């Protein structure tokens, strides 16, 4: 019988991987760093989504609602008043948490596809709002913010890596903590979990807040990396699809699988540049094959291989 890795072991292995990736800037080009920077932020999106879906059991088609709210709040604030970036980040995160609460209200009432629709509609309304309130948001052209954190590729990379590592650590720790257990039980069988004496609504609400916190903060940080907030980057359903696909092919209910999925998606898209226009097609096809043949994702595949040894 195979023994699962303990939380500490996983954190140790992850720390090692992070340490190795941290010295990458001394070896690889700025371009690959830029690629990984984006992949790390996407990884955080995917991990935050996994907390909601994999643990709390909420099918959220609109992770970009939380991300978009965070990103645009931070961007608009910077554009209007140019406070220190840290203030913008805090405001974006806060707004995303409020968004998370708004989203959580129907989630406590609706199940499955019905809640899924609400999240979808939330994204559509947000993107409509961005276009309609073009004065404030820059419309579908996008909002260019005056400040970025830094233009140095190495610094940006380390920032994203650090943020991803810390977020991943916290989310993973939470998922393995007593709260993670309760959340998972709530997602699987809310009636029984209630009867065990747990306030399922309270825990789900907490999951929404945590997920919104990381989604919003990551979104806000990414605004100050790109220097621009646009519907196509932060809100659009295609971005939501990428996040969900990253989390699913990385391995659901693993938290850290989301990072693997994100790095794979963005890396594959890049590696496939030679096939030109077909790269998205090929990446989708690979992801579909993973979903069809390896339903537990990369991490599931990995643990199967380990089990076979």
């Amino acid at each position, binding site marked *: 019988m195979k023994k699962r890795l303990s939380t500490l072991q996983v954190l140790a292995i992850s720390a090692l991987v992070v340490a190795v990736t941290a010295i990458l800037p001394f070896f690889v080009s700025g371009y690959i760093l830029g690629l990984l920077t984006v992949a790390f932020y996407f990884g955080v999106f995917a991990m935050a989504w996994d907390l909601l879906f994999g643990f709390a059991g909420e099918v959220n088609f609109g992770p970009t609602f939380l991300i978009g709210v965070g990103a645009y709040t931070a961007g608009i604030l910077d554009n209007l008043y140019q406070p220190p970036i840290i203030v913008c980040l805090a405001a974006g995160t806060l707004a995303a948490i409020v968004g998370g609460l708004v989203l959580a209200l129907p989630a406590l009432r609706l199940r499955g596809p019905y809640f899924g*629709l*609400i999240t979808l509609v939330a994204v559509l*309304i947000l993107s409509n709002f961005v276009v309609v309130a073009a004065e404030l948001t820059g419309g579908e052209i996008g909002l260019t913010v005056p400040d970025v954190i830094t233009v140095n590729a190495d610094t940006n990379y380390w920032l994203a890596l650090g943020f991803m590592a810390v977020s991943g650590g916290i989310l993973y720790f939470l998922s393995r903590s007593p709260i993670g257990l309760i959340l998972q039980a709530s997602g699987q069988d809310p009636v029984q979990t209630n009867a065990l004496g747990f306030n399922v609504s309270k825990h789900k609400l907490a999951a929404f807040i945590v997920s919104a916190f990381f989604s919003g903060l990551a979104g806000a940080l990414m605004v100050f990396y790109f220097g621009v907030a646009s519907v196509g980057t932060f809100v659009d359903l295609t971005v939501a699809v990428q996040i969900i696909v990253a989390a699913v092919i990385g391995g659901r209910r693993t938290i850290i699988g989301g990072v693997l999925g994100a790095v794979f998606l963005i890396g594959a898209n890049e590696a496939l540049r030679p096939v030109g226009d077909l790269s998205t097609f090929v990446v989708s096809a690979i992801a579909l094959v993973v979903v069809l043949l390896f339903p*537990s994702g990369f991490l599931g595949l990995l643990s199967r291989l380990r089990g076979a040894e």
Partner: protein
Amino acid sequence: MLFWQILIDGFAISSLYALGATGFTLIFGVSGVLNLSHGALMVAAAVGAWALNSELGAGAYLGAAFGVLTGIVLTLVTYHVVVRPLQLSARIREEEKEIFILTATLLWGIMIQELIAYFFTNNAKSVLPVVAGVVRIANVRTPANEIFTAIICWVAIALLWFIVNRTRAGKSVLAASMNPRGVTLLGVELSSVYIAVWVIYGVLVGVAGVLLGMFLGVSSYSAGPLTASAFSIVVLGGLGSVPGSLIAAYAVGYLETITAYTISPAYRTIPALLLVILVMYLRPRGLLGRR
């Protein structure tokens, strides 16, 4: 005048919504599948019709027929390559199959969309209408194609109603949507019922796609919004309920048209989205939802 305009224009667009949503809800009602490649299939049908006519000069009728055929073939491929393997998979827990089918059909839709963009660019295309010209109804100049669209939509819906309520095979489909076990116990192979449903769905998708291509035009970008709108209409009406979808399609269609006429075309979709949220809060199972 404005009243008549809204009435007539709203009717055509609503009929089209209704036809698109009917197939979507039928497939959910019978086999429990939410097919997120719905929009991509519709676009593929429309582009098929467009391509045969524009690239090979086949004419409007042949083009439309080819478009519908494209829809049917791709729908069956969707079922056999994407949906069926997941439904049969022993490695995925039953309660997780829903999210897997959602993800897989989503990816499949993107693949179709990308292939269309690759071969035919993502420019918007409109299918050559079978009928051209305009007609005056109640002093509103209405394109003949709009009337044609509404008629075909209703003919298709009526035909569907007839098949489902008046033929043996159709009855089995209807029965299976209420109780698949009951159908099996009466000696009807569920697997053939499923194939029949997917074929019907394919026809509906094909016809809706081609009509959409004639009426409004499509591009590979339309796939996502089309799926989203079918999804909202179907959930609004109550998942699996065909009459519910019809009502929801008209509610959304008219709400959009009224907004476009009386407020501003820029806000067209917003009230409909708010309506969805409102209904979800008041009636969490949709207008006519049962489960």
